[in-house]
């Protein structure tokens, strides 16, 4: 039963500093959802709470419920490791493993989860690189170091690495903010393609990007989800004054 992600009363802290306040939201399956807002408003924290990466930071904690297709990600006894396999993540700065080849980077998630079968690994790597629109560019240099690729290629390598383990959701934290316009366009094209297979939640500080790729958009301000609606609505007829101020560039 694919009913997406339901977030119920999610709050998050770094030490005693509360950075998310009672967020409620339903994120639909097979859609791209964008998260926008001024920097420091809690966008990264919000998506990191979805796959339990928030708690990796010493002193950080979260409270509330996150239901992934009905299952509470924060239920007692739930192993964050299994959650992270179902909800993959791509970061702002491309971060391929520098000691590994292109192939090994993409295979890393499966290998370290215990997959040994070479044929299965090859198939998964080729599929993931294909999904990330990188296969044609690297198929002849799978043995090259992942760090030797261009920035845009590295980011697509990271996307392939996240896809290889077969997640149901892909979280992207400003995935193209370190890239040039052409590499950015490739990533956006790729996101629209990925939508057919899985949910995508993308944080972006670029409102045009949200308008181009997202079906739904949420606007965060000071740790609160101010407004969540269809992307077109957010950009043409926002209901909240603060959203309007932000998208018309009056602050942020």
């Amino acid at each position, binding site marked *: 039963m694919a009913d997406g992600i339901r977030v119920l009363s999610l709050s998050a802290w770094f030490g005693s500093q509360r950075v998310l306040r009672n967020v409620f939201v339903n994120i639909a399956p097979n859609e791209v959802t964008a998260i926008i807002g001024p920097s420091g408003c809690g966008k990264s924290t919000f998506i990191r709470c979805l*796959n339990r*990466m928030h708690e*990796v930071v*010493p002193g950080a904690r979260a409270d509330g419920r996150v239901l992934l297709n009905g299952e509470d990600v924060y239920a007692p006894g739930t192993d964050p*490791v*299994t*959650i*992270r*396999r*179902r909800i*993959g*993540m791509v*970061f702002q*700065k491309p*971060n*391929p*493993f*520098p*000691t590994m080849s292109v192939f090994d980077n993409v295979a*890393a*998630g499966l290998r*370290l*989860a215990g997959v040994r079968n070479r044929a299965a690994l090859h198939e998964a790597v080729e599929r993931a690189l294909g999904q990330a629109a990188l296969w044609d560019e690297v198929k002849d240099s799978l043995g090259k*170091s992942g*760090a*030797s690729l261009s920035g845009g290629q590295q980011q697509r390598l*990271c996307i392939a*690495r*996240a896809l290889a*383990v077969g997640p149901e959701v892909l979280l992207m934290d400003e995935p193209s903010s370190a890239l040039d316009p052409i590499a950015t366009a490739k990533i956006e094209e790729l996101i629209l393609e990925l939508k057919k297979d899985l949910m995508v939640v993308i944080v972006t500080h670029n409102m045009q990007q949200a308008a181009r790729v997202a079906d739904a958009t949420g606007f965060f301000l000071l740790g609160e989800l101010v407004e969540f609606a269809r992307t077109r609505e957010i950009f043409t007829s926002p209901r909240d004054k603060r959203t309007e101020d932000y998208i018309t560039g009056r602050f942020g």
Partner: protein
Amino acid sequence: MTNLGRRRLIDRLMRRLAALAAGLVVLPLVVIFGFLLYQGGTAVNLDFFTQLPKPVGEPGGGMVNAIVGSLVLLGLAGLLGLPAGILAGLYLAESRDRRLTWLVRFLADVLNGVPSIVIGIFAYTVVVLPMRGFSALAGGIALAIIMIPVVLRTTEEMVRLVPASLREAALALGIPEWKVILRVVVPTARAGMVTGAMVAIARIAGETAPLLFTAFGNRFWHQGLDEPIAALPLQIFAYAIAPYDDWHRQAWAGALVLIALVFLVSLVARFATRRPGGA
């Protein structure tokens, strides 16, 4: 324009000074190496590497037992000290228990500052006395104790240098933390860790004091690890204070071989840790 001229002048001056400073750093090494070559070069021959020491007064002979002895001692020390130092360093870098890591780090720094002769006395008390005899094992343990804090601190520093973003990338793939450390963090820090281990080996290769009452030295082949064993620094010391010219030459040759050994270790470390694609 005069401003630019002055800046150019200062730039040239500073470049010269930096080059001079670099030269001054390398100079002692070059002088020592040249001096050893001059004094001991003639005594470095096939015999030196294949013969046992000759009885007192007889010319000729070599230091094969001391060369092999030093390798055995370094091997023992590495076998005991490297795993302990590396594991402790990993623990220090990864543990979130601030107080315990502070304590371990502090004790390691203290241990690093303990004079090596004191560590020799310690090994004498806890290994030589209960075993009722000097032994290669006691020497190896003394050297291992000297190595541990060096390896521990370099391992910790190198592991800490691994960018948090790599750790996060691995964790976000759904890889358990211990596997992230072993398969992503350690390989990334490997080059630095190997260098640290080599520095530690080089550091103990020349240690003499802690071997005086542990390995003790031996004019013949050692019969087992529970027996006294020869070592290059001990042999150099014994030959240098003896009244024979031939022995003096051999002591210089021993020093030359010791330095060459350290040099070789450093060189191997450099090549072993080069990543494909440079850097």
